[in-house]
């Protein structure tokens, strides 16, 4: 499709969607959101961009092959599970680090669960995009 309005809008929208997907990913532990939703939203951003500017540009903007992104995501998710071994716990036991925790606040909580979520985010992003791009290119 060759529409100036769509291209201009899509550029803006793709950026907004990507930022929003990061926000969804991070708030996911105790509120609606998380890696799966975040990945879907990020994929939407790239799909919008691909519809407006073509899949070639979208692939370039993504920089990596979607399949490899999904593979790396699976690796990160698995790593988050295996990391529990460092603390001598069973596979996929969540490990937490509270930065600057005081008696009444927990500070900034960091955990292996977040790493797992980032992995899921990448798996969803890569899988959806490899399907969407293939479909778009087959048309």
């Amino acid at each position, binding site marked *: 499709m060759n529409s100036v309005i769509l291209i201009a809008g899509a550029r803006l929208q793709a950026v907004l969607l990507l930022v929003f997907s990061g926000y969804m990913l991070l708030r996911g532990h105790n509120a609606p959101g998380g890696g799966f939703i975040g990945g879907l939203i990020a994929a939407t951003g790239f799909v919008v961009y691909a519809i407006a500017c073509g899949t070639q540009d979208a692939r370039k903007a993504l920089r990596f092959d979607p399949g490899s992104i999904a593979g*790396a995501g699976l*690796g990160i998710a*698995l790593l988050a599970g295996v990391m529990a*071994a460092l603390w*001598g716990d*069973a*596979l996929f036991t*969540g490990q937490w680090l509270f930065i600057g925790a005081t008696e009444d606040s927990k500070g900034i909580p960091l955990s292996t669960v977040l790493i797992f979520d980032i992995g899921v985010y990448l798996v969803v992003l890569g899988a959806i995009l490899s399907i969407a791009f293939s479909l778009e290119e087959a048309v």
Partner: protein
Amino acid sequence: MSWYLTLPLVIPFVAAIIAYLLRSSPLGAWVSIIGSGLGLIASIALMAVVLDAGVVAGQMGNWPAPFGITLVADLLSAVMVLITAITGFAVAIYALGDITERQAKLGYHALFQILLAGVTGAFLTGDLFNLYVWFEVMLIASFGLLILNGGKEQIDGGVKYVALNLISTILFLTGIGLLYGMTGTLNFADLAVKVNEVENQGLLTVVAMMFMVAFGVKAAVFPLFFWLPAAYHTPSFSVSAVFAGLLTKVGVYALIRMFTMVFDHDIGFTHTVLLWVACLTMVVGVLGAAAQSDFRKILSFHIISQIGYMVLGLALMTPLALMGAVFYLVHHIIVKANLFLIAGIAKRLTGGTDVYKIGGLYKSAPFLAVLFLIPAFSLAGFPPLSGFWAKYIIVKATLDVEMWFVAFIALAVGLMTIYSMTKIWAEAFWKPHPDGIEPELKTLPHKTAQILPVAGLAVLTIIIGLNPEPFVLFAERTTEQLLDPTAYITTVLGEAS
């Protein structure tokens, strides 16, 4: 600590990821081989631990059973994981000479490792819902492998395969839902205790039948086997070997697990159904094979008839019969995978899989002929190969409960098996090639990679055949655990308290 339980699962996933990232380089195949090799070591370690402790269990994420995800290995699980790893390792080596560069680029090695992970997970999981999840992992990976780089024939086989397996999945999920509604749990150990407290035992039997149909489709028993001969002869030979060896056996494993531990409330009904199913499966499978002329189709129908023997062992539910079923499972995986691998070499040498259109293998490739005879005779139940002992135990068990007719069917099916094997022997090996080709092993590209796994599996068959005692003793201990799951239950639930 439960790392020996998780490693057989984690290793194939890691191998899959690395193999996928390296899919465009020839290193991918080696990642798959090394991964399978490490997986084999991990499974041997698991086996050693289980032999020592009886049953081991681990709670993933430290959430206690029956709420969390439990991995359990009793002797049956451990031996199935080990045999999966052996088959996986053999096929990974064989793939060096069988998988084309294009298939590797599309992610064959990654899918293969994920399939192994799915099968291993199904054997190790301690609850029904995760069994479903592992079935799905297997289904997706196997669908990918079936249609990889395929033409019309592969897509046709793949779609039939997936459609029928999805029906089984729906039934399986419905059964899970109903069972959860009745008992409030899906953990095997917890279920084994709680099904006895269910008031409506009639409904429990209905749910049991749903599971029987669901697992029956996976195991390819009569009358639910149609997808198997429609799909197994289409993909590349490494794929069909690992399918033939492992996939249906996961269904049989699930049947054995559920119908010894959970659904033993109405043996008079459920196991009688199983008995008839087993007899019909044996007969239909072997008759179907007699009508075929394609190397792999003959073997596919024989998978079905052999599944009948295993289900027969479960249906009789006596210690000896169950022991036979366990022995049969192990023997069959090795033999069947090996026969499919040999079919692949035969095709490469002679240029076809229709046994009437090929030939001359005995004269020009005598070593391959010997390698074929070992698993083929073992399948037919010739002494002193592994299949003889497997059949002997099952037939002895039927005679012990004085089911003469069933024993007669089991023996007659064995005889018919010989007929099919002789057909392959006479046509593909003995008679000269109709086109005058003299297929020699020397011409085989990647000769070592293809012959080595075949020879290794054949040696395993001979070892089990000549020295069956430790294997029989092992099967006996496995059966004791199956018939008295107390140790299983206390190991899983005990850790929670």
